[in-house]
């Protein structure tokens, strides 16, 4: 053999030679893989002793149900609804308890500040701004998330998520996208920034971009509780108290399903315009179901979520609370700065079913969606009614006193679901795509859709005299 070898010195020459050998033997790459597997078989063969079990394993039985023709989709929907129901039903009481404790402490703080002779602006910024912002975020955000995530992790550890991808891949294929996109959406529930990063599991660059651009349509940790809060106190509040939780969970489930349909629609549209292309392949491994370690999961995800929420609350909500208090208490003429801003936004906001304050808080919430609800309440409270967050009914009264109708509630929830991603998610999109253009589109597409959807809903409701 060696007699025929030409001496080669550079990598380039060797590569050229390798190319020649490959051309004369096009199956070489395949053959290499086959050979490795043959070796693996030779090693595994004698080392693995399998005692075949006669009965079909429970893996198969579970799959028979969870991916069945008739039950596959209904079960997915049912599981989603049940999780929301438990979350909403369970979050009420702890929310109230946290609120009671923290606001009692706020009163105490006010007394201490007065005793210390602190100037009222200092008390305002520190207590009524920072502390109150923090308290609201924790009371509204923490309980639902501390219930939702352990439940979700349970399904994740069981191995249900790949089955969801298996069930839904056909729809993604029709949108010329990848079924694994649903896995990235599931990660988006926790945080859209994490969802965007997880898009790496999609092999085709085109389909990966579609997943990045649409990840925002699943409500993240920061928006979820806002939806839950409005659904509970407003939509739920319209019916008798026994049905409150049920109505609220139906509303939240419908919103999430709507988000999924918007994802399909946008994916389809992108595949036919900006990101034209055919569906590529999808290879999805369905791992065996594994019994989740209940205790460990609950403990771990509870701690994880609590730390996550508290961290975001301290980093984002406390400063946002201070700034909002300042904006609400510095007057230019008769009206505070925040009042001016809201008044300026009002016509535009009204057209899409919101009011100036709501739109303003969504804009101020760009760094973190968690702060939207607290800032909004702070804005409303600063405009006169000296009401304090007490019970959910009182919260509802605050909203009604500020002219909320069911349409305001619906449009706010829709806007919350569909609007622009937070800066952290945008930053991730920039890192993943490495392109300003795609990052900008990650911002623009949801924004445009949110405005259009809310506009249509608000205008048709008014035209039909429904409000």
């Amino acid at each position, binding site marked *: *053999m*060696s007699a*025929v*070898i030409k*001496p080669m*010195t*550079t*990598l*380039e*020459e*060797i*590569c050229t*030679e*390798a*190319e020649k*050998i*490959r051309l004369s*033997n096009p199956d*070489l*790459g395949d*053959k*290499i*893989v086959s*050979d*490795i*597997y*043959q*070796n*693996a*078989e030779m*090693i*595994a063969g*004698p*080392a*693995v*002793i*399998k*005692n*075949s*079990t006669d009965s079909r394993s429970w893996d198969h039985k579970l799959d028979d149900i969870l991916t069945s023709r008739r039950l596959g989709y209904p079960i997915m929907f049912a599981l989603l609804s049940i999780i929301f129901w438990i979350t909403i039903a369970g979050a009420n009481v702890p929310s109230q308890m946290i609120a009671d404790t923290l606001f009692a402490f706020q009163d105490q703080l006010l007394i201490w500040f007065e005793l210390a002779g602190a100037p009222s602006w200092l008390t305002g910024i520190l207590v009524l701004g920072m502390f109150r912002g923090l308290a609201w975020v924790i009371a509204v955000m923490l309980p639902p998330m501390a219930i939702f995530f352990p439940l979700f*992790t349970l399904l*994740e*550890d*069981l*191995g249900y*998520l*790949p089955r969801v991808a298996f069930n839904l891949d056909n729809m993604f294929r029709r949108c010329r996208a990848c079924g694994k996109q649903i*896995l990235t959406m599931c990660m988006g529930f926790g945080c859209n920034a994490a969802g965007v*990063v*997880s898009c*790496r*599991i999609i*092999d085709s660059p085109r389909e990966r971009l579609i997943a990045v651009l649409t990840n925002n349509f699943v409500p993240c940790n920061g928006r979820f509780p806002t939806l839950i809060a409005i659904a509970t106190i407003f939509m739920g509040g319209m019916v008798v108290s026994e049905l409150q939780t049920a109505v609220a969970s139906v509303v939240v489930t419908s919103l999430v399903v709507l988000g999924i349909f918007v994802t399909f629609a946008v994916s389809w549209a992108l595949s036919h315009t900006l990101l034209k292309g055919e569906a590529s392949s999808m290879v999805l*491994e369905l*791992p*065996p*179901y*594994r019994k989740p*370690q209940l205790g460990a999961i609950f403990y*771990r995800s509870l701690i994880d979520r609590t730390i996550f929420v508290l961290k975001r609350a301290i980093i984002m909500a406390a400063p946002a609370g201070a700034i909002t208090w300042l904006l609400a208490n510095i007057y230019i003429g008769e009206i505070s700065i925040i009042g001016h801003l809201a008044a300026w936004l009002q016509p535009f906001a009204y057209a899409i079913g919101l009011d100036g304050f709501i739109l303003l808080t969504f804009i101020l919430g760009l760094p973190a969606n968690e702060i939207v609800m607290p800032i909004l309440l702070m804005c409303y409270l600063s405009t006169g009614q000296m009401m304090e967050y007490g019970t959910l009914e009182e919260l509802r009264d605050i909203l009604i006193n500020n002219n909320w109708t069911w349409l305001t509630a619906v449009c706010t929830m829709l806007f919350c679901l569909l609007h622009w991603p937070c800066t952290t998610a945008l930053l991730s999109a920039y890192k993943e795509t490495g392109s300003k253009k795609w990052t900008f589109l990650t911002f623009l597409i949801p924004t445009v859709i949110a405005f259009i959807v809310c506009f249509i809903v608000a205008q048709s409701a008014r035209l039909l005299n429904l409000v």
Partner: protein
Amino acid sequence: MNHSATKEHHKLLSEHFGITAIPGQFTVALAGNPNVGKSTVFNALTGLHQHTGNWPGKTVDNAQGSFTYLDRSFLMVDLPGTYSILAHTIEEQVARDFICFGKPDVTLVVLDATCLERNLNLALQVMEITPKIIVCVNLMDEAEKKNIKIDLSALQKDLGVPVVATAARSGMGLDTLRQKLHEMSIGLCTPTPRQISYSSEVENAIQQLLPNVSRLIGSNLNPRWVTLRLLDGDQAFIKSISQYLNLDLHSTRLQEVAV
């Protein structure tokens, strides 16, 4: 490893892989198929809380963590799960480049005991790159449930590298794992991994290139493995070689990197 070489190595780690090692620390790479429990092993050893989940693709980014055993510090690097390191996707390339050019002191390959054959595909590929490898057969509890038994000593003999059985979630086998990691890092154990035997077709092709490849790359990498990658037409690999080893297409000899 002498002092300047260590420095060089740390610079490489932080520049190319975003990993910061402290002097004297051993680096351990965690490789394996997706969903075999790499992050669970990582968590169990380091006490950190990387996210885990029963679906392939949970980890998409390198994570690092450290632990101390017998007064030596170990830096663990949790790599994304891959079915192969022939580098067809970005994750595979990340994993492959780290094992190949990150020069970890030990590469810990985690295998799923319930589908050993498929997992061995990856283990064999890693064994072609580096001899410093420990095989961790994880999910032993699941295998037991499925009535699958694994003859570990036969496996160890056949592979020529240390094999440790674990059930990372419950902590079984982790002590042995730490001990083996320690032994290999301090050089008490230098395995001779079984090399893949190729069919004559592939072997002939290898022989045509091998002498020249050996001459070119010196002792930096396993020449046989490099030959295979070149025969495979792996463009990403050619790029990686030039990137990590400062070898451009026209140089006649690799700059020797002190090891």
